[in-house]
């Protein structure tokens, strides 16, 4: 079974949970920006959670899909439709006939994830199918999708087959059939200001009192110069008390570094492995899915929590994802 790209959208690429284990060779992790939505999309369609899916950015693609394909859409609501009929998200969808899945306007969020039962039949590079566009590796020919690309799918595994069998049993004349169960998500309607929780990073104390005050009490705008590598912020400039002698060291998903011009950069999926700018804070793991769903010109505010709280939130979320996986098995 296969997928033909009729129009690619703004930036649609194949991503999984990234290239793990090669950062010591400078290899960028890449992978989904919103790993939470990716993991859920896969879990809901019966794949292993780290299978590769399509990451769709702001303006979605139009895809020709064969009948018999099952998929799940999570993340941003980019108005997916089949023949003008809205396709529900956060639940499995089974195609009764060959169909064109088309995305429209972006209603909320920034990135949608489209996972197919079985996943993509493409080679792994360094253990991952993620596309790293700058080096031209992984995914489909190392690049974002283009018109007329054809993606083959692997045979679905047992869990997916169970889901497909249950859906296809419903006798329906519709082009597509959806499950009557789903997870309640997508309530991330655009707020005027999104609060992002952070913990202190290594050079936090090196910033002036005024800068730290501004960091926690003023709004920052996500600049138009933002991409999968990082979000640049505009707003109050952050200054060091005095220049800090920095030695390049590891950076992480969600690290907030501050170059000499005082405008912070949040490092994301395609971040470099190491960096030499002072780091003021680190976005807590559970809030990374919030920040990567914000679009340029949206506003954020930072709130400090303790590392212990961040860990607690992490474990709670992992338990939630695990509960969903168990739930899917029982459906």
């Amino acid at each position: 079974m296969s997928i033909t790209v009729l129009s690619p959208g703004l930036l649609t690429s194949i991503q999984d949970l990234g290239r793990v284990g090669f950062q010591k060779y400078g290899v960028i992790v890449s992978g989904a920006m919103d790993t939470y939505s990716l993991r859920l999309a896969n879990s809901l369609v019966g794949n292993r959670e780290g299978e590769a899916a399509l990451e769709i950015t702001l303006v979605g693609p139009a895809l020709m899909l064969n009948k018999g394909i099952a998929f799940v859409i999570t993340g941003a609501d980019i108005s997916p439709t089949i023949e003008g009929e809205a396709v529900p998200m956060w639940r499995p969808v089974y195609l009764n006939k060959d169909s064109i899945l088309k995305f429209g306007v972006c209603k909320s969020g920034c990135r949608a994830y489209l996972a197919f039962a079985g996943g993509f039949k493409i080679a792994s590079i360094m253990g991952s199918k993620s596309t790293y566009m700058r080096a031209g590796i992984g995914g489909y020919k190392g690049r974002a999708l283009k018109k007329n690309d054809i993606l083959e799918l692997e045979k679905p595994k047992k869990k997916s087959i169970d889901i497909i069998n249950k859906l296809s049993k419903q006798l329906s004349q519709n082009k597509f059939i959806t499950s009557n169960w789903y997870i309640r998500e997508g309530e991330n309607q655009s707020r005027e200001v999104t609060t992002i929780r952070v913990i202190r990073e290594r050079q936090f104390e090196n910033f002036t009192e005024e800068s730290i005050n501004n960091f926690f009490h003023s709004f920052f705008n996500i600049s138009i110069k933002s991409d999968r590598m990082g979000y640049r912020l505009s707003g109050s400039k952050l200054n060091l008390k005095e220049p800090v002698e920095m030695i390049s060291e590891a950076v992480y998903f969600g690290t907030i570094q501050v170059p000499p011009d005082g405008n912070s950069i949040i490092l994301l999926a395609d971040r470099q492995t190491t960096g030499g700018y002072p780091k003021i804070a680190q976005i807590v793991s559970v809030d990374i899915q919030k920040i990567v769903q914000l679009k340029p010109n949206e506003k954020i505010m930072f709130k400090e929590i303790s590392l212990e709280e961040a860990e607690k939130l992490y474990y709670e979320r992992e338990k939630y994802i695990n509960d969903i996986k168990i739930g899917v098995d029982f459906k």
Partner: protein
Amino acid sequence: MNIIQINESSVLVEFGKVINEDIHRKVEAFCEYVDKHPFKGMIEYIPAFSSVAVIYNPIKIEYEKIYPLLNEILCNLNPSLGKQKRVIEIPVCYGGEFGPDIQYVADYNKISVEEVIKIHSSGEYLVYMIGFAPGFPYLGGMSDKIATPRRESPRTVIPKGSVGIAGMQTGVYPISTPGGWQIIGSTPQQLFRPEEYPPSLLKSGDIVKFYPISCDEYEKYKGDEK
């Protein structure tokens, strides 16, 4: 030595706050140890000049258990002094279209282009770390006679293989990327090899030597690699 928890899944082992070979050897010894004896729940590590970040899976191991583990590794660390280092020779076609800034480097240091080539290609460079981009080596040991500040405005694209100078550092760009280094030449050698293991020609601890080649040799080398 310091062990610092950074976030929910990372811990940093810091060996010092300066760049020198002594600290580099400790970084090396630590990496070698965890390569051979990765602990349960360890995902990967990211070595740098004077620190190593260890990434772990908090579902499999809690920080409270990692701290004593790392502490024990550090106490038993044995940085070897006389370890045989790998020497990697990298051919470089200096100047011309491959090295648009070589004249600037020469003028800045008040020497000739030939001298820049001679000095750059007679050095022995220690790979302190690989980072920033896939396979990108941070090299130490460049002569201050060819040290040159970065360009005031960075180039939007520096072609793959470019050999550059930034302050007291020299390095090679394994992939095309924007950058502000002074470009003095180019190598046909592939530093980033995504289809191979390891995917990087160089690893931290290697010694790099550059040797000059002509444009014809450059083209021939490129042809042979294909």
